[in-house]
């Protein structure tokens, strides 16, 4: 009975797959083009070739291969610990140059770089193959899953819009039909997330073997990444199952409308009108599943607090939206007439 | 045998009556012989593209008129007595046709002598030269 919906998902995921393949292809191009730039290993190799550099190699008791480079002339001292598949730890101390900042902390993929200046000297600590937080993956996956959810939303409105005579004359109750269709779409949206994560993992794999971090905030990100697109999907279903036609326009307008509402909540509450606008927008935004998407909240210092405060409430709201909006769509579907 | 049966659903004559009349006529003309089997209701309905119940009604009518007989499980057959009476059936068909013509002649106001004159002339045309002529 859900054959049509499977075909819709197949078509939608086909497009997503094409986009992801293009992204992977771009990553391949990037990989090839950066091959000649220095990786941390190449940098070390480069330093070891400097005139006046003294190199010594030892194997530590835990199996770590340690290389120590010393160049008294350039006041450079480097310790390179190769932990095998667990990555490499590099500590370089050299005179500060203009390229060095007071303090810097950069993560690119799994490579983590910390620079710190002590007087005229700067220490650069590089850790390769660090853990990659799933949070990053989920943020991207969420983006694609929300788009897929928006495209797939309104399966019932699609039937109302010209196919009810086929849909409702099958030997299955309306409720079971609708549950089947919504269930299939849920699978499709989750598949979109999984495909996106897989594609981006593949991209990263071109550069290194990432170790994924599923702990703490990352678990919360995965849960939110699953719940939010589904709640969003249910909301769009509820919004469109009322319509005999033009569901497509509504699917396009709702995200824009909610974005606008979201912006209105940021209006400074300087006068009565602004306060009113802000309050109305704030109330509307409470019904938007995207409002609750966050795995962190700003703390008093202004930076993000990843401790997970509020997360229980937020994820519950997403679950509630999924159930409530879904029920609304089903209720409306029961009353549809051809 | 179905080849001789045709119906005109657009005519005002009920389809079942058209079938009844054509079966009778086929017997009178010797197209249908004594004991010959008629197509099944289903087959004739499909051949003529008319409702099977309409064909069934025609067959019932023919049975009531003792034109055909139906043996359960074997089908419908032309009754021998009916074929023996076929000259009489031919007379009936001819009389019906003439009656229709005379009714029309009367309706348009021709009198007895005028009708007789016309009849003689038409009779001459159809029956003088060729003795084997058609009944119509």
């Amino acid at each position: 009975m859900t054959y049509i919906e499977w075909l819709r998902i197949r078509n939608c995921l086909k497009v997503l797959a094409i986009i992801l393949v293009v992204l992977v292809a771009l990553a391949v191009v990037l990989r090839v083009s950066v091959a000649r730039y220095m990786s941390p290993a190449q940098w070390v190799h480069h330093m070891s070739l400097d005139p006046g550099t003294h190199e010594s190699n030892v194997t530590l008791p835990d199996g770590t291969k340690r290389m120590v480079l010393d160049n008294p002339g350039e006041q450079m001292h480097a310790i390179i610990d190769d932990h095998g598949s667990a990555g490499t730890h590099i500590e370089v101390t050299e005179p500060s140059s203009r390229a060095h900042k007071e303090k810097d902390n950069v993560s690119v993929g799994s490579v983590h770089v910390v620079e710190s200046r002590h007087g005229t000297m700067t220490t650069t600590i590089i850790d390769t193959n660090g853990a990659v937080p799933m949070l990053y993956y989920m943020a991207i996956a969420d983006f694609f899953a929300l788009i897929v959810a928006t495209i797939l939303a309104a399966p019932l409105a699609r039937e109302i819009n010209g196919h009810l005579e086929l849909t409702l004359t099958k030997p299955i109750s309306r409720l079971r039909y609708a549950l089947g269709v919504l269930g299939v779409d849920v699978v499709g949206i989750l598949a979109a997330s999984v495909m996106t994560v897989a594609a981006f993992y593949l991209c990263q794999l071109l550069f290194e073997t990432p170790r994924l971090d599923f702990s703490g905030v990352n678990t919360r990100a995965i849960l939110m990444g699953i719940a939010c697109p589904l709640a969003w999907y249910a909301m769009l279903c509820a919004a469109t199952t009322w319509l005999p036609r033009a569901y497509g326009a509504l699917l396009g307008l709702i995200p824009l409308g909610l974005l606008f509402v979201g912006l209105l909540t940021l209006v400074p509450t300087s006068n009565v009108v602004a306060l009113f606008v802000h309050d109305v927008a704030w109330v509307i935004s409470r019904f938007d599943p995207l409002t609750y998407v966050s795995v962190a909240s700003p703390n008093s210092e202004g930076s993000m607090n990843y401790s997970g405060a509020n997360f229980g409430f937020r994820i519950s709201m997403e679950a509630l939206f999924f159930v409530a909006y879904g029920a609304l769509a089903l209720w409306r579907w029961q009353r549809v007439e051809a | 045998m179905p080849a001789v049966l045709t119906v005109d659903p657009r005519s005002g004559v009920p389809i079942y009556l058209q079938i009844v009349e054509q079966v009778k006529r086929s017997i009178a003309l010797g197209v249908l012989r004594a004991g010959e089997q008629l197509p099944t209701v289903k087959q004739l309905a499909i051949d003529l593209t008319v409702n099977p119940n309409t064909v069934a009604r025609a067959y019932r009518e023919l049975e009531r008129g003792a034109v055909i007989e139906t043996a359960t499980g074997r089908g419908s057959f032309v009754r021998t007595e009916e074929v023996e009476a076929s000259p009489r059936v031919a007379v009936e068909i001819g009389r019906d046709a003439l009656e229709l013509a005379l009714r029309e002649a009367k309706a348009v106001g021709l009198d007895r002598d005028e009708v007789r004159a016309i009849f003689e002339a038409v009779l001459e045309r159809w029956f003088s030269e060729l003795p084997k002529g058609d009944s119509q």
Partner: protein
Amino acid sequence: MSSIKISNLRKIYGSTPAVDDLSLEVPSASVFGLLGPNGAGKTTTFKCMLGLARPSSGEILYDAKPLTPESFERIAYVPERNVLYDWLTVDEHVEMNRRAFKAFDAARARELLSQFGVDHRKRVAALSKGMRTAVMVACAFARNAEILVLDEPTSGLDPVNQRHVLSLIINEAAKGNSVIFSSHQIGQVERAAETIAIIDRGKVILSGLVDDLKADRKIVEGIFPDVGFSLDGIANDPRVSRVDRTERIVRLLVTAGADEIAGRLSASGATGIRVLDLNLEDIFLYAVSPVTATTDIVTKELSS
């Protein structure tokens, strides 16, 4: 064995009744033709029968039982409008039916499609209106259903394919199944249907066996010598349902006893008495639009 019984069906949209106190019965192993002008309520009746629209009141029973989702294993439906998925191929529609209905015969569907001349690999978007009808019809007749509800099953088809649909309908009746169908091609209804109902503005205005309606309903025509003739109460006979007087000519639409009324007309001084047969189209026109019907009969006579 499958019969349909509709009792006092009423469907009101807003304040206008689309179907108003409609009752009809389709016995098993029969073909029922539903006739009516555009907007008479035929499609609404079908939609109510299939649960696509909720009746405002009344009852629809299949074998004395109300419709349930499981009933659709036995009921095949061809809707009036195109409801196929434009983005699917014909084959995918066949597959959809195969998955939805246990008794669906996909091989039979493909056979019917090729008989109708439909290319099964094509997308529906690329099909003409007639071919879309053919896809719906082919899938419906491959369902092995016991009840077929066909709303304009020949619309857009060429005459050869129209005749093919009629053969399929007759074949279903011969197998003992019930068919209820509507068509604006009255000639088709006349051929395939045993019983008809003519509906207008949601009400049944005439129903019965096609052959009986034809046998009973006649036009009796007579010509009087003077314009100021009197019908001697013939017009008040309950069997005379309509009187048309033009100059010296009178035409009576009678619902029974045509020969007797012809005799009475003759007795009251009319000459040129004729009893004219009516085909279903004439009967239909007299039922829904008497003025058009009279004009039609007159022109037909003039041209013959």
